[in-house]
C-alpha cells in the first residue's frame, strides 16, 4: 500500500474543497441571483470541465502556468519556483477541474430559496451578508454539503489533469490514481487492486453518507419520495 500517495491525495482533496468553498460559493451565489443577460456565458465556462477531456484542460492549465506565460512568470518571481509539477500547481488545476461539481449543486440550492424570504430579510433590516448566513445558507445546507462531497470525491479520483500538470513525483504530485496506473504498468495487479478497492470503498461510503443525509436535494437518481 502506497501510504504517501494516499495521504497526498487526501491532502489535495481537502485543499481543493477548502478553496472551492471560498471561490465557488460567491460564483454560485452570483449565478443564482444575477439577472445579467450574458450569465449563460459564465455558466458555460464553469461547466466546461464537465465535458472537456481532462488532458485538454490539463494541457491549457500547464501552458498557462508555464514559464512562458505572464501568470507563470509572476508566480515564479513571487515564490522562486514555477507552478507546473508542484503541489500548488496541482491544486490549482484540480480546483478548476472540480469547479462545476461544487458550483452547480450550490447554485441549484441557492436558487431554490424562496425570493420572498430573502426580500423579507432585507426589509427586516438585514445586510446581504447576514441574509446569506442566516437565511440562504441554512436553507441550502444540503446543496453546499453535496457540492463539497462531490468535489472531494471527484478530486480523489482525477487522473488526466494530474498527469498533465503534476506529473508523477512521489510525495509531491503522485496521487492514488497515478499510483494505480504505475502498479498496472509494472504488472503489480495486487498493489493496484488494494489501492483501487480503497478508493472505491471510500468514494462509495462518502456518497452514501451524503445522500442519506440529504435525500431531497440534488440526487443523481430521480426522487422516489
Amino acid at each position, binding site marked *: 500500500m502506497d501510504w504517501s500517495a494516499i495521504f497526498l491525495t487526501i491532502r489535495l482533496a481537502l485543499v481543493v474543497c477548502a478553496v472551492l468553498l471560498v471561490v465557488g460559493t460567491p460564483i454560485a451565489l452570483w449565478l443564482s441571483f444575477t439577472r445579467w443577460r450574458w450569465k449563460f456565458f459564465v455558466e458555460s465556462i464553469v461547466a466546461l470541465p464537465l465535458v472537456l477531456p481532462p488532458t485538454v484542460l490539463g494541457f491549457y492549465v500547464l501552458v498557462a502556468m508555464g514559464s512562458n506565460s505572464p501568470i507563470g512568470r509572476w508566480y515564479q518571481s513571487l515564490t522562486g519556483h514555477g507552478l507546473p509539477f508542484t503541489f500548488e500547481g496541482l491544486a490549482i488545476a484540480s480546483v478548476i477541474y472540480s469547479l462545476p461539481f461544487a458550483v452547480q449543486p450550490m447554485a441549484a440550492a441557492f436558487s431554490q430559496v*424562496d425570493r*420572498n*424570504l430573502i*426580500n*423579507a*430579510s*432585507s*426589509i*427586516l*433590516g*438585514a*445586510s446581504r451578508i*447576514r441574509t446569506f448566513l*442566516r*437565511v440562504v445558507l*441554512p*436553507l441550502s445546507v444540503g446543496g453546499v454539503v453535496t457540492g463539497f462531497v462531490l468535489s472531494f470525491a471527484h478530486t480523489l479520483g482525477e487522473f488526466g489533469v494530474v498527469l498533465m500538470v503534476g506529473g508523477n513525483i512521489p510525495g509531491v504530485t503522485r496521487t492514488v490514481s497515478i499510483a494505480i496506473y504505475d502498479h498496472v504498468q509494472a504488472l503489480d495487479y495486487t498493489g493496484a487492486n488494494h489501492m483501487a478497492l480503497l478508493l472505491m470503498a471510500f468514494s462509495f461510503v462518502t456518497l452514501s453518507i451524503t445522500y442519506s443525509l440529504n435525500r431531497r436535494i440534488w440526487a443523481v437518481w430521480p426522487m422516489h419520495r
Partner: protein
Amino acid sequence: MASGNSAIRDGGLSVRIEYRTSNSFALEAEFEASAGFTMILGPSGGGKTTILNCIAGLTRPDTGRIALGARVLFDSDARIDMPVAERRLGYVFQNLALFPHLTVAQNVQYGIAKMPAVQRRARMMTMLESFRIAHLIARKPGEISGGERQRVALARSIVTNPAAILLDEPLVALDNATRSKILDDLRAWNAAHGIPILYVTHSPQEAFALGERVLVLESGRILAQGMPHDVLATPRHETIAQVVGFENVFDATVRSIAETQGTMLCQLDGSATRLEVPLGHAETGKRVRIAIRAGDIIVADERPHGLSARNSFPGRVLSMRREGVRVVVMIDAGGAPFEVHLTPGAIDALRIEDGKEVWLVIKTYSCNLVEPSAR
C-alpha cells in the same frame, strides 16, 4: 396638494410612481397615506402589489418620488434610491415569508438582532403577547396553524417599530372571525403608534369595512381615492362600479332588528323604501351603508307573489341605455335611485320603457352591508 404637506408632517407616506414593464403593463399612481389604514382595492393584475414593492424598494420605479415623513425613500430626479434594508418598513407578504428553519421566537427577533439580548427578548415577548402567540415561541412556522402564522408574520414586521406597514392580502386565507380578531389587535397596536398602514385587498367589503381611506386601482391607474363614503359616492363610473363591485350604494338607518331571523330592516335615506338586510353589528337607529349589485336586482311588471325574496317594492323607470349586451335601467323607488342591469330579451318581454311602473325584487343576501367601521 394641501393634504400632501400634512401627510408628510405627521410621518405620512407620499407616493408618486411611474413604472412600466416590457409587456405593456404601466403603473401610474400618486397618493398620500397618513396614519391609519389605507386600503388599496382592485382586481388582481391591477398593480396593487407593485405599488407595495416600489415603496419597499423591491421594485424600482422608472420615475417618481416616495417619501415617508421627512425621509425620501426614492426620488428619480434627485437620484435617491434608499436600500431596502434602510427603509424601516414592515411588509407582510401574501405568502408571509416566515423563515421556515427558525422558530417563532427567532423569526420575531430577526429584525431586532442589534438590540441587547435582554431588551430584545422582553420586546419580543411583549409583541407575542399582544398578538396572543406567546405560547408558540418554540415552534417552527410549519408546526402552527394558518391564523397563527399570520399573527407571527405581523408580529415580526411590527416588532421593529417600522415607520409604515405594507400588508399584501395578508389575511386572505382566513375565516372572517379570525381575520377581524387579528385586525382588531393590529388596530389596537396602531392606536398607540399612529403609522400609515397600506392594506392591499381585492375584497370590496373588506376595503370599505376597514379603511379610513380607500384607493381604487385598476390596470395600473387610480380610479378613485378618498374616504370610503366619497369613493362609493363617486359618479357612477363604469369601471369603479365593476372594481368596487356595487353599482348601488345607499345610506340607511336601522329601523328594527330580527335577531332570531338574522336580519334587520333598514330605511333608505330620502326614500320611503325599506330593505330587509342581513344582520350586522348595528342597533336600531344606527346608520349603515348598503351596497347592491345591479345584476342582483330582479324586475317584474306586476306585483310579485310566492317568492322567497324578502324585498319587493314598486318603482318607475327613469331612463334606459344600452351597453353592449346588456341594458342599464335606472329606476326610481320612492325617491331612491336604483341601477338595474337587464338583458335586451328581458326588456322586450316586460315591454320596459321610460315611465313604466315596475316592481323591484331583491333577496336579503343580495344586500351587502359596507358600513365603515366605527372609529
